[in-house]
């Protein structure tokens, strides 16, 4: 089983997505269980790839069509990609199990297809080694996200999807202009070769190209002025899909931004772009936190908190130092776990008690103690209380931030996280110490997942060393572009 079988990561979801219309006869439950089985299979493959990459230490280079890069398209599954493909697969498996119970809205077979293709898009975005291929996978993720946001077919869902579509459309068009400019001046689309040749690009083209690419990806990665679509999309999408949005769709966008950013290090105006990104990231954190303060709807509140944490990851990745990138990746992993836990919990309550307004969460501790406990662990972790996992990555980010000289940025972020503490603790108080209600039966499967995630949060919190070592390897995978170029077997091409 040589490395090329890693391409199954892309082939399997695609194959099973196309297979769904043929097995429409199995009926709703059949398709949902099929979905769970496929995502489980995908997790298996991802785990095998993860083990392969982390044991040998060398990234797997999948060359589509047998053509060596830059002639063909290559999938570069390095330390980061292996880790995150596994996270994408695991979170999709959890959401698949959750949607078995939660998804009632009709054309289930179409839902399953879109679900698989969203997972495919994110995996592709993380794994690809070619910028146009990145554009294609980004479009796959984006369009399936548009469809899934509007899946509930309510007025709000359609409105949210419209917003996402228009902003995403503008973003991807400008991204494509950026790709065109890069291709125009360098003649190649392969990331490794771009990194090699970026130095001798014409400065103005480089500046415009880099700015446009970062702009296009920033819309996907929800940085400050461009993330106006995000809260609506998170709120209006079906609960299972919001989990996927916050857990890995955003992460794929962030990873792409970071990857392209560090590839183009040799470009003259690189440092100015970094400063701009740091400013936008800090603003994202501050504005999102302030916006979440007086939210009536819990799901929208947690959406804002997820956006602000994503802003913090972007801040870390844009610091331009190895410590910053490692901390950013570590925070990505933690954020994925915590937000998956929170959105699953909120979604579960939303369906069981009808709606995710704050009133339903009053006295949740008495009605659904298990979910309330999981949500409390999630919120405490999100606030950054020690002995939970986000504390470690938040401390690392802030220290790296001060080290990189952005003391003001760090101060603003700290101020924002005070605001975050306020609304999360109000949420906890509402759950445990206000309102009343009698005990309700809680589903086994979902409670199991919630408790597993909560346990994961606490375990990482108490013993973060393993995850931190993974994050360091993944961080160096992004930051250390020289190593990246050496790993990719570039053919000597051209005049």
């Amino acid at each position, binding site marked *: 089983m040589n490395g090329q079988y890693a391409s199954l990561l892309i082939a399997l979801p695609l194959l099973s997505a196309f297979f769904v219309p043929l097995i429409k006869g199995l009926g709703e439950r059949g398709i949902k269980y099929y979905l769970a089985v496929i995502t489980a299979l995908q997790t298996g493959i991802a785990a095998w790839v993860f083990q392969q990459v982390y044991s040998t230490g060398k990234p797997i280079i999948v060359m589509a069509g047998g053509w060596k890069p830059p002639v063909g398209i290559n999938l570069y599954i390095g330390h980061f990609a292996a880790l995150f493909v596994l996270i994408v697969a695991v979170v999709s498996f959890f959401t698949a199990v959750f949607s078995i119970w939660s998804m009632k809205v009709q054309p289930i077979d179409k839902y399953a297809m879109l679900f698989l293709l969203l997972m495919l898009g994110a995996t592709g975005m993380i794994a690809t080694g070619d910028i*146009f291929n990145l554009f*294609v996978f980004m*479009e796959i993720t984006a*369009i399936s996200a*548009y*469809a899934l946001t*509007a899946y509930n*077919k*309510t*007025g*709000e*869902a*359609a*409105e*949210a*999807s*419209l*917003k996402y*579509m*228009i902003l995403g*459309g*503008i973003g*991807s*068009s400008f991204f*494509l*202009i950026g*790709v*065109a*400019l890069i*291709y*125009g001046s360098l003649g190649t*689309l392969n990331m490794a070769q771009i990194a090699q040749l970026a130095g001798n690009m014409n400065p103005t083209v480089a500046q415009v190209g880099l700015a446009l690419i970062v702009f296009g990806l920033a819309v996907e990665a929800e940085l400050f002025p461009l993330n106006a679509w995000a*809260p*609506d999309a998170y*709120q*209006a999408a079906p609960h299972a899909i919001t989990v996927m949005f916050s857990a890995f769709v955003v992460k794929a966008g962030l990873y792409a931004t970071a990857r392209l950013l560090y590839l183009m290090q040799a470009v003259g105006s690189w440092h100015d772009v970094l400063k701009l990104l740091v400013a936008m990231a800090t603003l994202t954190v501050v504005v999102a936190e302030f*916006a979440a303060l007086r939210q009536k709807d819990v799901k929208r509140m947690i959406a804002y908190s997820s956006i602000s944490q994503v802003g913090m990851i972007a801040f870390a990745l844009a610091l331009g130092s190895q410590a910053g990138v490692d901390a950013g990746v570590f925070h990505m992993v933690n954020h994925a776990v915590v937000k998956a836990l929170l959105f699953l919990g909120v979604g579960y309550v939303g369906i069981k008690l009808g709606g995710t307004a704050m009133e339903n969460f009053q006295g949740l501790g008495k009605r659904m103690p298990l979910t309330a406990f999981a949500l409390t662990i999630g919120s405490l972790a999100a606030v950054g209380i020690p002995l939970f996992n986000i504390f470690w990555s938040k401390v690392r980010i802030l220290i790296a931030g001060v080290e990189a000289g952005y003391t003001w940025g760090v101060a603003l972020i700290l101020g924002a996280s005070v605001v975050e503490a306020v609304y999360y603790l109000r949420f906890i108080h509402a759950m445990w110490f206000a309102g009343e209600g009698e005990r309700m039966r809680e589903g086994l499967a979902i409670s199991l997942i919630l408790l597993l995630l909560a346990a994961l949060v606490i375990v990482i919190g108490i013993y973060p060393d393993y995850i931190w070592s993974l994050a360091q390897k993944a961080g160096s995978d992004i930051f250390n572009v020289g190593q990246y170029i050496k790993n990719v077997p570039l053919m000597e091409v051209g005049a």
Partner: protein
Amino acid sequence: MISVYYFGAISLILIGLYAVLVKKNVLKMLIGLSIMETGVNLLLVSIGYISGRSAPILSEGIGPNQAVDPIPQALVLTAIVIGVATTAMALSVAIILYGKYGTLNVEEIRRLRG
């Protein structure tokens, strides 16, 4: 200063963006979006053009150095289809919006805010 094709492409993009920024009706915005996508595709193709050379079909008359750069044309093929896909999705969402809101004026479609 820049060739007429680039100028045409950029103006198409800007017209598309103008429509999205100014027009109140959702459909007009979507049309603006697809104009922008066509503009980008035009830009992509014109980047690959090499003056004095013909289409990259390597039949008898045309050798490797008489053909234009094939890659942008391959990319445009994909970009066009993506444009179609986005527009199809957008129109179906617009259908639902009109069904639920009864209007296509962007000002009124503001239930999710704050």
